[in-house]
C-alpha cells in the first residue's frame, strides 16, 4: 500500500542510504568525541545550501563544496586534524550568521517565486519531496561514503582508540583524521536533503550512542549503529505516512526512543548486577 506510492519509494531509497552512512560515520564520531564537529558541519551545510541558492546555483553544489571545504579547514586548525571546541564554536557561530545573511539575500532578491520557506525547508529537510533521480544520486553518494568508511575502518578505529600507539605503528593518523572529516562533511551535506540541516545530528548521535551503550566491541557496535539508524528511518517514514506528522520529526522521535531504551536497559542491567564501588 504505502510502498506503491512513488514518493514513498524515493523517500525509502534515499532515507535508507543516508541512514546507513550516518549510522556508520556516527559511531566513529561518538568514539572520537567529535559529535560537536558534526553539529557544526551540519550548520555549515545550511549556509552552503542558502549561499548557492542566493547565487542562483543548484543548492547541492554549494552544499557539498562548502561543507567539505569547511570540514578540512577546521581540521587544519586542530591538533592531528581534531578541531578544538572553541574553534568549532567560533567558526560555526559566524557561519550561521552568514547563513541568515544569505537567507535574507535569497528571499529579498528572488521573492515572488514562492520560496519564502526555503530557509525552513533547508533546515528541516523534505524527504517526501525527493525526485527519482535525486533519490538515486543520494543513495549512490551515501553508499560511496559507506564503502570508503569500511575500507578505512580498521586503521581509523586504531587511530581513534589510541592515537599515539597507532602513530608509532605507522598508521597515518593525521591523514585519516582529514579523510574522516571529509566523510563527515559529505554525510552532513547528504543528510541535509533528507532530514534537514538541523536534524542530521539525531541520525549521527542517537543510533551511535545507543549502540555504544549496548556493546563495547567495535565491529558489532558499528553494525548495530547502522541498523538502528536504518530502522529509525523506516519506522519514522511509516509512522509519518500513517499519522500526519512531519517525517523528520517521526524519524528523530524513533531514534531518540531507541537511545532512551538503551539507557533504561543499561540501568536495569547495572541494577541487577552487584553495584560496583
Amino acid at each position, binding site marked *: 500500500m504505502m510502498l506503491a506510492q512513488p514518493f514513498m519509494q524515493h523517500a525509502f531509497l534515499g532515507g535508507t542510504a543516508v541512514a546507513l552512512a550516518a549510522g556508520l560515520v556516527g559511531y566513529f564520531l561518538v568514539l572520537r568525541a567529535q559529535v560537536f564537529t558534526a553539529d557544526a558541519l551540519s550548520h555549515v551545510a545550511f549556509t552552503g545550501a542558502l549561499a548557492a541558492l542566493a547565487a542562483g546555483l543548484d543548492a547541492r553544489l554549494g552544499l557539498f563544496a562548502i561543507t567539505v571545504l569547511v570540514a578540512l579547514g577546521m581540521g587544519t586548525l586542530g591538533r592531528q586534524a581534531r578541531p578544538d571546541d*572553541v574553534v568549532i564554536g567560533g567558526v560555526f557561530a559566524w557561519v*550561521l550568521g552568514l547563513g541568515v545573511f544569505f537567507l535574507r539575500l535569497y528571499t529579498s532578491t528572488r521573492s515572488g517565486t514562492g520560496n519564502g520557506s526555503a530557509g525552513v525547508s533547508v533546515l528541516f529537510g523534505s524527504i517526501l519531496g525527493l525526485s527519482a533521480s535525486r533519490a538515486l544520486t543520494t543513495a549512490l553518494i551515501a553508499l560511496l561514503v559507506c564503502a570508503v568508511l569500511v575500507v578505512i575502518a580498521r586503521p581509523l578505529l586504531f587511530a581513534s582508540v589510541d592515537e599515539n600507539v597507532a602513530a608509532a605503528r605507522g598508521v597515518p593518523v593525521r591523514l585519516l583524521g582529514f579523510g574522516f572529516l571529509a566523510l563527515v562533511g559529505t554525510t552532513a551535506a547528504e543528510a541535509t536533503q533528507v532530514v534537514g540541516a538541523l*536534524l542530521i545530528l539525531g541520525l549521527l548521535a542517537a543510533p551511535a550512542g545507543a549502540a555504544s551503550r549496548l556493546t563495547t566491541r567495535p565491529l558489532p557496535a558499528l553494525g548495530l549503529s547502522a541498523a538502528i539508524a536504518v530502522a529509525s528511518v523506516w519506522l519514522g517514514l511509516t509512522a509519518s505516512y500513517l499519522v500526519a506528522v512531519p517525517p523528520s520529526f517521526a524519524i528523530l522521535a524513533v531514534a531518540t526512543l531507541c537511545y532512551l531504551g538503551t539507557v533504561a536497559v543499561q540501568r536495569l542491567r547495572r541494577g541487577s548486577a552487584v553495584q560496583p564501588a
Partner: protein
Amino acid sequence: MTGTFTWNLLADIRDMWAYDAMVNAFRAGTIVAVLAALVGWFMVLRRQSFAGHTLALVGFPGAAGAVWLGLSVTLGYFTFCLAAALVIAVLRTGGRRGYSEESAVIGTVQAFALATGMLFVSLYKGFLNGTTELLFGAFTGITADQVTVLAGVAVVVLAVLAVIGRPLLFASVDTDVARAHGVPSRVLDTVFLLLLGAAAAEASQITGALLVFALLVLPPATAQLVTARPGRSLAVSVGLAVLVVWVALFVGYYSPYPIGFWVTTTAFGAYALTSVLTGRTRSIPRRAAA
C-alpha cells in the same frame, strides 16, 4: 528597520533612540550581553560549548510550543531550556565514560528538541515567518515588560554565579584536585548547567535560538586569549560582548541585513583579529579530567 544614515554619529544615535523599540532593544541587548559573557566565560573554560549550543537550540521548540498553545514565548524559552539542562545533567553518567558518552547524549537531546520544534511549527499552521524569527532573532519586537523579566532573571543568575564562582572556577580548572579538597563538583556541574540554560534562554529571545552561540562563545573565547587572569578576563569578556551587541544594533538599524548576521560577524571579527595578534587559539590550560 532601516533609518537613513548620516556621518554625524551622535545625531544618528539620537535619531535611532527616538524609537521606543530601539531603546528597548539596547536595554535588552545589554542585559543579555553581560549575562552571556559571564556565564559563557565559564562555559568556554569548562569546554561545554556543545552543551551551551544545545541548550540554546532547545529554546526553539519551547518558543514554538508556547506560540502554538497561546502562552507567553518567554515562559516557553525558560521552561524548555531549564528542563533540557536537567536532562543533560541526569543522563550523563557522571564522567565515568568520559566526554564521548556526554556528547552522544547532548547531540540526541539537541536533535530531538529541534524535531519537536518542527512538529509544533507544523501543528500551528501559517507560522513560517515566525519560524525564521524564532531561529534567527528579532531585536525590534521587545517590549518593556520583557526587558523587566530579562533583567530579573539576569540578576538571579548572576547572584548564583557570584556565590558559586570561586569553587566553580576551581572545579573547572582542575576537577580532581577540587574534589579532593571537598568541592562538591557534581552539584556544581548541575547548577552550572541550569545557569547556562537560563542564560541561553535569555539570549535566545534577542538573537534567536541559532545565534545565541555568538554571544556565549566568542566574547569569552576572545577574552581568554587576551589574558589568563580570571578577573580581568571576565571583565574583558563583558566589555566585548556589550560592545558587539551595541555595534550590531547600530549597524543593523542602518542596514537592510539581519541583526543576527551583524552580531556574529562583529564577534567573530574580534575573535579572529585577537587570535592573529596573539598567535594562539587557546590560552587558559585545563588539566585533563573526566
